[in-house]
């Protein structure tokens, strides 16, 4: 047993489908979470983010109005954001590798393709707790490092050329 105190976390679940929200909330409650906030769209999520300042966000991609990706970009880069480092776990029915890349490039920490399962949700939670990635700020990007490889594995100036495409970093598990 790992003994995580999920009851100490504030978790925001954002999905415009009430059934999926209920499913995720039920699973999180069974894990022991009690401070769970829900939002049915990006605008309400943004307001709730500023009110509740959650520790973790489960976020749907495809929503009416502001998409999940738009919200991720706001959280990471807006001057109004309460926490640009908040871990974001993106839940989505999109499964193509291009979508994984888009999510990664927006600043998502973990990607969870539907259908969801209890174990998949737990594994993403454990991943953001146990394996946080460094953050990167460049001219065009702010968010978690888009490479899973630990920084101490740097192998010289040709590293990027040698490991050019690594979208599997987020698709794995």
């Amino acid at each position, binding site marked *: *047993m*790992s*003994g*995580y*105190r*999920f009851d*100490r*976390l504030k978790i925001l679940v954002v999905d*415009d*489908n009430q*059934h*999926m929200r*209920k*499913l995720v909330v*039920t*699973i999180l*409650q*069974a*894990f*022991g979470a009690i401070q769970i906030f829900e939002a049915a769209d990006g605008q309400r999520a943004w307001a709730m983010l500023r009110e509740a300042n959650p*520790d*973790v966000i489960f976020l749907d991609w*495809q*929503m*009416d109005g502001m998409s999940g990706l738009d919200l991720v970009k706001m959280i990471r880069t807006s001057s109004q954001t309460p926490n640009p*480092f908040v*871990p974001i776990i993106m839940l*989505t*029915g*999109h499964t193509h590798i291009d979508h994984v890349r888009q999510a990664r490039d927006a600043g998502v920490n973990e990607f969870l393709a*539907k*259908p*969801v*399962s*209890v*174990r998949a*949700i*737990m*594994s993403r939670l*454990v991943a*953001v*707790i*146990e394996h*946080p990635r*460094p*953050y*990167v*700020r*460049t*001219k065009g990007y702010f968010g978690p*490092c888009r490479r899973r490889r630990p*920084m101490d594995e740097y192998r010289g100036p040709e590293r990027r050329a040698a490991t050019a495409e690594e979208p599997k970093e987020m698709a794995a598990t």
Partner: protein
Amino acid sequence: MTKQLPIEIFMPPNILKAKVGSATGAIDMAAIQRAELAMETLKTEFNDWVGADVERLGACRDRFAEKPDPETRDELFRLAHDLKGQATTFEYPMIARMAASLTRLFDGTKPTDTIPLSLVDAHIAAIRIVFRDKVRTATDRISIAVVEELEARVTDALLGNVLD
């Protein structure tokens, strides 16, 4: 020679770890079992949830048929996309596959006014029948034959082939 902007890399404090306490990092099997039990309890509602989404899909189709514009198209796509993502969790894997086929029609490559309504209707009719007959496996032969035909028709439509 232009000066490159620096790349700043830093590790924020691990607030999550500090909050949830030190643990082994292994999967908490007791928590998993509690959640799976909660899912079992929730299963009694799955049928109603899928039924509600199938009804909404039909209503979205009607709005799209009446006024095929980006708004009704997006609405239909989002609902089909929801079913694609969650119908398997709610024990209707064939509905998920049929909905996935339907979303391909709305992937942005076809102009809204060229999306064949007859093919949209064929998907929705198939989804309704799977739900009506409570087909909860991914191995039902008739459902597989139907969805394979739908997928082939969608491919044809996306290639610009004339539909029957």
